[in-house]
């Protein structure tokens, strides 16, 4: 633990002032990322799509990067000066497994973990574009000479498959294992030998949907929904696979489907790659074969399908299903692995939502536009908080 000098930073939370031991000064780190953001606005790394790059730029907003500290520890007070009642220190080395069709998770986690400053080793997917390395290669020279640059230089990222012996070494050496992948991959990693007191967080296959009330449906909302859906289609755990029109009729759902179809070219004016266009022809036929009324949007970039809630879902990547349902029906039809509900509700703060969520497995209940927003709490885990362990100080320590 003494390899890396740690600074002590004070935060005032509901139960008093905590000292947080960090390898990097948090404000300097936020500032360094903000500086990189300036470069990113001017020049995009080739490996990233425009949407991915824009998402990363938004993620590096200082307000967003301060949020893990604020939400976990409370208001920042600067270097420790007064009495503190708890000490939080990084648990140690972190191993991160990324799935194959991941795009931004790697870069996003590099950013979040950099705020802790723990050693980070990453296993990228063996059959996917390695955007983590691409991001590191972009960031390192531009952050050279600042502590964050030194930290990024220490981050190791390699692509190998599930059977590679390096998986075992990653698990053996890490105090925290973060696993993003399918259920089988997560299970196999969990079975690797690992330190007894280490922590493991598996973020496995999840589904999300959008719940809209008819009174909230307008072009702005639908354009927002289409932008959210268009980034990942159904391949994103945070992307809506189904739009549920709460309290609507089948005719309302059909009309909503038509509006989404008509608005798609406004939300995504560029034509898709040929394989997406082709895949969408397949998706339309697949959905139709299952009983959905499906139509390919202009430009062939997406497929919209309307039907009954009890139809077999069509998991084509760029197909969005639209159904009408009562709240009770929507709740009953939630998939077991539901992650995010993106909402557009007349009163999203009404207590009935709390009552409903209390007995579902929904992990996130956020406005439609924020469905993809990744943060320190994920899939029900305050995983960023768990990158630290806590020392109870009774009656407290005053430096």
């Amino acid at each position, binding site marked *: 633990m003494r390899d890396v000098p740690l600074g002590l930073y004070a935060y005032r939370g509901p139960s008093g002032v905590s000292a947080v031991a960090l390898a990097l000064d948090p404000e300097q780190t936020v500032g360094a990322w903000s500086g990189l953001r300036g470069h990113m606005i001017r020049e995009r790394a080739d490996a990233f799509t425009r949407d991915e790059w824009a998402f990363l730029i938004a993620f590096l907003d200082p307000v967003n990067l301060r949020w893990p500290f604020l939400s976990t520890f409370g208001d920042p007070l600067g270097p420790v000066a007064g009495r503190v009642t708890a000490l939080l220190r990084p648990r140690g080395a972190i191993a991160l497994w990324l799935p194959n069709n991941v795009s931004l998770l790697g870069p996003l986690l590099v950013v979040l973990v950099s705020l802790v400053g723990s050693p980070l080793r990453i296993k990228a997917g063996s*059959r*996917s574009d390695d955007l983590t390395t691409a991001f590191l290669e972009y960031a390192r020279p531009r952050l050279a000479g600042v502590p964050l640059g030194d930290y990024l230089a220490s981050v190791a990222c390699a692509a190998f498959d599930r059977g590679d012996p390096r998986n075992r070494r990653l698990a053996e050496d890490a105090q925290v294992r973060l696993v993003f992948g399918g259920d089988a991959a997560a299970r196999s990693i969990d079975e690797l030998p690992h330190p007894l007191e280490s922590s493991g967080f598996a973020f496995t*296959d999840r589904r999300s949907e959008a719940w809209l009330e008819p009174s909230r449906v307008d072009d702005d909302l639908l354009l927002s929904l289409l932008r959210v859906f268009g980034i990942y289609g159904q391949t994103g755990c945070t992307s809506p696979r189904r739009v549920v029109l709460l309290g609507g009729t089948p005719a309302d759902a059909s009309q909503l489907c038509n509006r989404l179809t008509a608005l798609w070219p406004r939300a995504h004016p560029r*034509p898709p790659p*040929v*394989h997406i266009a*082709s895949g969408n*022809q397949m998706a339309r*036929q697949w959905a139709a074969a299952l009983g959905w009324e499906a139509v390919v949007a202009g430009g*062939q970039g997406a497929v919209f399908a309307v039907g009954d809630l009890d139809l077999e879902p069509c998991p084509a990547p760029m197909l969005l299903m639209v159904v009408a349902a009562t709240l009770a029906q929507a709740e009953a039809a939630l998939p077991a692995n539901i992650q995010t509900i993106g909402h557009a509700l007349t009163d999203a703060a009404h207590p009935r939502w709390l009552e409903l969520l209390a007995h579902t497995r929904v992990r996130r209940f956020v406005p439609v536009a924020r469905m993809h927003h990744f943060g320190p709490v994920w899939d029900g885990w305050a995983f960023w908080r768990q990158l630290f362990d806590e020392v109870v100080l009774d009656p407290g320590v005053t430096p």
Partner: protein
Amino acid sequence: MSALLECAPYGPRDESALLSELSQLSHHHLEGCPEYRRVWPGWVGARRLAELPWLHVGLFKYLNLKTTFPGVQFERTLNSSSTTGNRPSQIALDQTSSALQARSTGAILRDFIGGGQRPLLVLDSAASLRMRGAVSARIAAALSLKPMASEIHFLLTDSTDPATLRWDLLGDLLDRHDDLLVYGFTWMLWLAWGAASIPEAVSARLNGKRITFVHSGGWKRLDALRVDRAAFDGALLRGLGPGSAVIDYYGLVEQVGVIYPLCAHGFRHVPVWAGVLVRDPFNLRPLLEAPGQLQLLNTLARGVPCHSVLTEDLGIIRAGDCPCGRSGPRFELLGRVPKAELRGCANA
């Protein structure tokens, strides 16, 4: 039955008969396949091939489509070879279609390699035949050459390992025959034979023999090895006698029965019982002399609505007559639709 199948594969074409047979076949599938009916609910008829209903080739990976009709008997399922991480297509084989498909393949191949029978050597293992209820694309392709085979031998002891080629068996066959037919997937034929160190004793016995190599399955793996057609053919034909040839054909399990061998002038010819269209991927309009997605049609498929399939292969239809002398439409195969997996944040 397809009356067109009675004709020579590359003889004069009767386009109205083709349209009529394909239209009847479409109605047949609409009646017998509920999923197909849901995909094409409003279709009543076509005035040209481009108006016929079609299914996207990818659909056969996700749906087990079958058309039932009186007397239909499904026997086995044909599985496509699939690349890593991809699902294979599954095509149910029924007796009626299988008979038509075997006749079709035989007629097409005879046009390219001539009639007569000779030993067929398959670059696969005999164990591949013993899969219950299923047949691989590789075995199905090999067995389509059966009508031209006087006897069949499997040259590999392990169907996945090109290093297990039984050179002793090949040597014995070369001692007894001057004319052999060899089938393998393109990459397997290269690794097991073309790029292999052939034992001296076998190499000597190959000299002057007439061998016809037939291969299919595409060049993706060989592109990675930087092996082009000239190198491929040259390696296989080295030292062989006159009349030896390498025939590369294109075909899909979703269009089983119709294969498209490459002619000497680099084109794929369409037999009279089949049709080809090229469509713009972004609006599906038919294209002529411009690259687009290939749609393949044939009059053979009774048990599965795969008589009209929009492929994920790119091609271009060429107008005019081919110097090879075969009549009818011809096309160039340009490769697969370039693919990049849709990137998600999760693990679908």
